[in-house]
Each structure stands twice: as structure tokens, then as C-alpha cells.
């Protein structure tokens, strides 16, 4: 029932052959595919990580750029505000000066006008007085002399009246 013979050797040979066959046709390809898939997944994970890192980097860069742009725009606005203030002040000052000058000029004009009017009126009054006097007197002699005489009179009277008025 129990006998040990040459079949032990056959069994060993069979085993070795089976091992080689299985390794070549079953385990080899399957383990290879599994290994490849593992590598592929690892690679994908690595590349995903890389991409993520790059994205974060870019995000940081953009945020910086955005911040500096904000700062820049703030600065520009402030500068413009300052300039506008200065300009406005200058314009107001100019306007004030100009207005003052115009006012002065207007005052001077008014005074000159007044003086002119006064002068004209004085001469008219002298004429009228002369006319009235000549009409009263009826004759006209040594008119030039009289005229100067009246002039003097009117002037004195006017001056005294002016003095009373003021």
C-alpha cells in the first residue's frame, strides 16, 4: 500500500514544470498588470499633487498681484485727490484775487466817473449861472472877465456847500 518509488522524482519534475508554467502564464502577467496599475495610480497621484501645488502657487501669485493692484489704485486715487484739492484751492484763490482786482477797478471807475460827472455838472452850472446873470443884466460886456469871475464865485460857493454837506 505504501511504496516509495521513482514517482517521487516525477512529482518533483511535475511541480517544477507546473511552477514555471504558472509563473509564465498566470502569475507573471497578472502580477505585472497589477504592478503596472499600481504604478499608474501612484504616478497619477503624484501628478495630481504637483498640479495642486502649482495651482496654489499661482493662486498666491494672483492674490499678491491683486493686492498690489489694489494698493496701486488706492495710491493713484489719493494722489489725484490731493492734486484736485491743490488745484481747487488755487482756482478759488485766483478767483478771489481776480474778483478783488475787479472790485477795486470798478470802484476806481466809479470814482472817476463821479468826478467827471461832477466836473461836467460844475461847468454846466457855471454856464447856466452865466446865462442867468447875463439875462438878468441884459448885456454882455467883458464876458471873458465875467466868466472867470463867476467861475471863481461858483467854486467858492460849491466848496463851502461841499464843506457843509460833508
Amino acid at each position: 500500500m505504501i511504496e516509495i518509488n521513482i514517482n517521487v522524482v516525477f512529482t518533483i519534475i511535475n511541480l517544477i514544470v507546473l511552477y514555471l508554467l504558472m509563473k509564465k502564464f498566470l502569475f507573471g502577467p497578472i502580477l505585472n498588470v497589477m504592478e503596472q496599475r499600481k504604478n499608474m495610480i501612484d504616478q497619477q497621484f503624484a501628478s495630481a499633487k504637483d498640479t495642486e501645488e502649482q495651482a496654489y502657487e499661482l493662486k498666491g501669485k494672483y492674490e499678491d498681484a491683486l493686492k498690489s493692484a489694489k494698493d496701486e489704485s488706492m495710491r493713484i486715487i489719493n494722489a489725484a485727490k490731493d492734486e484736485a484739492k491743490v488745484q481747487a484751492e488755487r482756482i478759488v484763490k485766483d478767483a478771489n484775487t481776480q474778483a478783488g482786482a475787479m472790485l477795486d477797478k470798478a470802484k476806481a471807475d466809479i470814482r472817476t466817473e463821479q468826478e467827471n460827472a461832477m466836473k461836467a455838472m460844475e461847468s454846466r452850472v457855471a454856464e447856466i449861472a452865466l446865462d442867468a446873470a447875463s439875462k438878468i443884466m441884459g448885456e454882455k460886456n467883458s464876458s471873458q472877465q465875467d466868466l472867470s469871475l463867476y467861475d471863481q464865485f461858483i467854486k467858492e460857493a460849491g466848496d463851502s456847500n461841499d464843506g457843509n454837506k460833508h
Partner: protein
Amino acid sequence: MEELQCKTVFTIPVFGGIPIAESVAVTWIIMAVLLILSLVLVRNLSVENPSKKQLLLESGVGFLHNFFKDILGEEGKIYIPYLMTVVIYIGIANIFGVFGFVPPTKDLNCTIGLALTSIFLIEYAGFHKKGLKGFIKSFAEPSPVMLPINILEIAIRPTSLCMRLFGNVLGSYVVMKLLEFICPAILPIPFSLYFDFFDGFIQAYVFVFLTSLFIKEAIE
């Protein structure tokens, strides 16, 4: 009693006739089946979109691979394909009785062959890892008192491996034959589930588990 006999299927008429035992012939059939299955199943493997068949195959092979890798670690990686081959072979051989064949592991010659390859692999692993000097020195560890026991282990380990497998399969084979003799219908089904499938796979598992443990011990 005739059933216990290991029949010689045929004799090769050279060197005064080489007898080919039934176990060897059945092993050839198992090898052919495994080869054909491999060739059929391992086709159109795809890395990116595996088919359901491929996933099933991968999970099976991956399970065995992880099982041995957990025991052997990274260093014993090269022994994994052999252990996977053996577990598949013994598993199929043990349940081959269901298909009407005589399980090859019922023949002591077959289990001796298996055990011899196992012990060779175990010692080779130790030799490969430690070199000649370390290998010889490892027999005197942990203390020189252990020397005879360590040397005896070379003989004891394969003997225990082959006898355990042989005894279990022969026993279950005999029980199954007796049951079939008493009542050929229905009754053998639950017993067959236990003796052929459960015990068969347990023995395959035990055989490769012990072999891998010994290898691990040798390469530590």
C-alpha cells in the same frame, strides 16, 4: 482494500520499465487543466479598464500574493510564485476526487515530492540569505546544544509536511469511498463538502502556510 492501492497507470518500456503512478498521471491532467485555464483566463489583460473576469482573477491572485507577502515580507518575494503554485495545485488535487479522479495527494510519492521541494526551498532560502558560513552557523543557534535537533529538523519538517497531507487525504478518501459504498446517493454530499472541499483546502493552506513560515524563519 483495492482502493487504497496506488495503481500504476502504465509503464514506460525503457530501463527495464518505469512505472508511472496514477498520481503522476492525474497531476498531468491537473497541470493541463491549470495551463488551459491560465491561457484562457489570462488574455486581454488591461491595466486601465479590467474586465470582471480579470478583476476576479486579480483579486484571487492578489489575495494569495498578499497572504504570502505578509508572512515572508519583501525579502521572500521570490518564493511567492512557487508557494502560490503549490497551494493551487494541492487545493485542486485534494478536490479532484470529486470529479472521479484519484487525488494525487493520496499517493505518498506525491506528498514526498512536495515535501522534498519544500524543504529544499526552505534550506535554499536560508543558504541564499546567509551564505554558506551563516547557513552552517545557523544550525548551532540559539545555542550549540540545539545542533542535533536543528539537523533533525531538516528530516522532520518534510516528513511532518508530507505525512500530514498524505494521511488527511488518504483518510478522507477512504471515508468517502466507504460512504459511497454504503449509500451512493445524497448521503455523501455533506461529507464530501467536508472531506473533499473543507479538509482539502485546509490541508493545502496548512502545507503552504508551514512552508512559508519555515522560509520566513530561514531568511530571518
